[in-house]
């Protein structure tokens, strides 16, 4: 390659780009393999990829379970308390169930969208990835509220019930329980904010930059 060809204004449409030497070099990367070895190696490769694909599916399923199990346990816990203690706690159970359904639905929807990623155009894939990263960022940023909502309602119902039944009946144990709940909520909120800021914010920025690059024509 040389300066003269590079500076030629007609170079834009030069059919021989990038020149015979580089084209030959580029094409020499792929040389047909011996037919004696190829089938054996391809079988091994296919088998490895099948295993990898299966493992990846299992890993994704495990992540979904990990996200949904806590809220399902909360729902079960509040149903139990609703039965044995205060029927008002069914409201918290319903809130937890609602959040659980929302999470399951969004996971399923996301999986469907992800399946289209591979075979869409590059531009569409980047747009979808950006929208997905924004959704994750939003969800983790407000994860404290998802969990705070039902727990806060439960806490309020328990206290209102206690005070209604016996205005002087608030015990030290209740205060400890409230403090424990608040601590759990603060930890959840901090954890969600950390994931949103450290993992999903950079992803959003990365895809925004990538999309800006694509649109910069």
């Amino acid at each position, binding site marked *: *390659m*040389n*300066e*003269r*060809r*590079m500076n030629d204004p007609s*170079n*834009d449409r030069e059919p021989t*780009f*990038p*020149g*015979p*030497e*580089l*084209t030959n*070099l*580029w094409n*020499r*990367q*792929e*040389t*047909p*393999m011996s037919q004696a*070895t*190829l089938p054996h*190696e*391809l*079988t*091994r*490769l*296919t088998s*490895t*990829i*099948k*295993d*990898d*694909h299966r*493992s*990846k599916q299992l890993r994704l399923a495990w992540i979904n379970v990990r996200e949904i199990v806590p809220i399902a346990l909360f729902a079960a816990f509040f149903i139990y308390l609703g039965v044995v203690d205060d029927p008002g706690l069914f409201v918290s159970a319903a809130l937890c169930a609602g959040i659980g359904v929302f999470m399951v639905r969004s996971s399923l929807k996301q999986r469907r969208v992800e*399946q289209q*990623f*591979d*075979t*869409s*155009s*590059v*531009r*569409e*894939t*980047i747009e979808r*990835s950006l929208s997905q990263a924004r959704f994750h960022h939003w969800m983790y940023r407000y994860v404290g509220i998802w969990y705070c909502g039902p727990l806060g309602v439960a806490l309020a119902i328990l206290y209102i019930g206690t005070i209604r039944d016996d205005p002087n009946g608030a015990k030290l144990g209740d205060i400890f329980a409230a403090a424990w709940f608040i601590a759990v909520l603060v930890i959840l909120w901090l954890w969600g904010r950390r994931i949103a800021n450290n993992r999903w914010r950079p*992803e959003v920025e*990365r*895809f925004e930059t*990538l999309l800006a*690059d*694509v649109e910069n*024509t």
Partner: protein
Amino acid sequence: MNDNRREELFTQWMAEHRGIVVKVARSFTSTSADTDDLIQEILIRLWASIDRYRGESKPSTWIYRVALNRALTWQRDTSRHRVASPTHELQQLEASTNADDQYHLNRLYEQIRQLSKFDRSLMLLSLDGFSYAEMSEITGLSESNVGARLSRARSTLMAAISEDSAFSEDSAFSEDSA
């Protein structure tokens, strides 16, 4: 699609077009560990995409699309547990090139990696002889936009190559032989 048909198609794609996966992975990563990870990711996506392949586009176009989509959105995940590496198998499939070619190819990939990610995609497609119409189908840009972007990317790449001593000092790439 049944498993046998899927395996048959995947094997056929790898026999004929495995180079695309390696080229894309090398252009989007700078360490061999990352290249391994990206190759693995692309192959898994290709395997999963077979069900949706209807034969409306050429296999090479389909493979490029899947590979570029994965490469562009891929981000190294250090927390991920690698289940198995297909790299050994793929390396077995890659015929070895001589040391001189390897040296020049490494330099060429280094220069390609200097381009923006999207320009890299266009450059790979261009080097592999895809038409503007095919590039437009893969990237989602209009043909005229593909042409404009590619023209800029080519100029950048050619300028970098002309300044790279690996090419300018080698008689095979010098002006006389061009």
